[in-house]
């Protein structure tokens, strides 16, 4: 790929999807776009760029953007957020919700299911601490195709070896030939729904924990701010927002604040959350704590 071609694709992706590639992501472009080019009968990146510049390239534009923005996902991706979930988030929730004994979690970019299932496995591993609790995990994604895969919970041998400890594979999956399917008990913990984050999501209700990782990077500043502000309305006053390693609210909105020493973890700012949800935000958690005593 020539530097000119790379620069063209960088700008093209920035304009069409907000995806902002750094100067050294040639390998990423090649690994994602060469298979696509081959399928479309295009000889290489050079010809692909020519086709994109030409008229009537609508379908190609869409598939290039999709190929570049579809995220690689694997179990317990990045590890640290799931450690936070186990060691910080859930212990606090278990205390704060001891009265109503229920927790609602939203995976806002649930993709092919690895993230919601990783959370489901983490919750199972907590064992007795959650006995009798009502656990709700809602996994949403833009793509129906991706949701179908998530729902089925069937993964290739390659996929189950990314991020998943072997003990968990043995405990929570059933082998069928060359594939592995997550157990029905864990599948039943998750509701899968199609959702575009650009659209209204108030109907989903209020959550204790929102995982929204590696999806906002594809949006421009204003859209990010808009989504953060709307997320703030769907989160309990003492809830948690979890963002991807390369994402932050800092400099964008004051509806959330980072939790010190817990990278990727945010809490709604009391004042702002109260303003967004005058009746609920302040009172609900206090009631729950009192009821727990």
């Amino acid at each position: 790929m020539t530097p000119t071609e790379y620069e063209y694709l960088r700008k093209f992706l920035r304009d069409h999807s907000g995806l902002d590639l750094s100067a050294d992501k040639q390998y990423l472009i090649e690994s994602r776009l060469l298979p696509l080019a081959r399928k479309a009968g295009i000889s290489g990146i050079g010809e692909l760029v020519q086709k994109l510049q030409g008229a009537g390239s609508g379908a190609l534009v869409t598939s290039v953007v999709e190929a570049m923005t579809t995220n690689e996902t694997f179990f317990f991706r990045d590890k640290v957020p799931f450690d936070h979930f186990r060691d910080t988030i859930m212990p606090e929730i278990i205390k704060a919700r001891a009265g109503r004994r229920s927790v609602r979690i939203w995976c806002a970019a649930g993709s092919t299911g690895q993230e919601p299932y990783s959370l489901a496995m983490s919750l199972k591993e907590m064992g007795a601490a959650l006995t009798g609790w009502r656990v709700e995990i809602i996994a949403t994604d833009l793509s129906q195709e991706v949701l179908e895969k998530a729902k089925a919970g069937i993964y290739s041998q390659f996929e189950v070896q990314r991020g998943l400890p072997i003990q968990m594979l043995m405990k929570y999956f059933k082998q069928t030939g060359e594939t592995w399917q997550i157990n029905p008990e864990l599948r039943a913990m998750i509701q899968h729904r199609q959702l575009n984050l650009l659209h209204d999501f108030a109907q989903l209700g209020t959550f204790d924990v929102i995982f929204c990782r590696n999806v906002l990077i594809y949006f421009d500043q204003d859209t990010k701010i808009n989504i953060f502000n709307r997320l703030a309305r769907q989160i309990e006053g003492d809830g948690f927002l979890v963002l991807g390693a390369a994402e932050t609210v800092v400099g964008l909105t004051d509806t959330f604040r980072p939790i010190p020493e817990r990278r990727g973890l945010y809490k709604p700012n009391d004042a702002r959350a109260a303003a967004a949800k005058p009746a609920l935000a302040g009172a609900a958690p206090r009631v729950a704590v009192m009821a727990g005593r």
Partner: protein
Amino acid sequence: MKTCLVVDDSSVVRKIARRILEGLEFEVTEAEDGSKALEVCQHKLPDAVLLDWNMPVMDGFEFMGHMRRLPGGDQPKVVFCTTENNVAHIAQALSGGANEYIMKPFDKDIIADKFAEVGLIPVGQAMV
């Protein structure tokens, strides 16, 4: 530098594994069967063993049993790396003292993930 003993009867697999592990900053030694691997371990135990199952002379499972009984033999992290991809074999390996299990074919990402899983490399390194 941490050390890893790669045990596989295929010289091609050993070569690929060596390249990946050297990329992860391991000092690599090789053995072509369990018995040769045991000789290496009797001399000096590595930090990690990447272990094939089916090999001539002594298979990987038998080797692991002998190695675990050496003084300090409970220390090395054993990661199986084999075409035996069924639940029975995995369960047998784990109960016999394996720390992780890779089903072939493998690549750099899988090795990095599994090595991070058992604490042989920092998690961040596996994400690259």
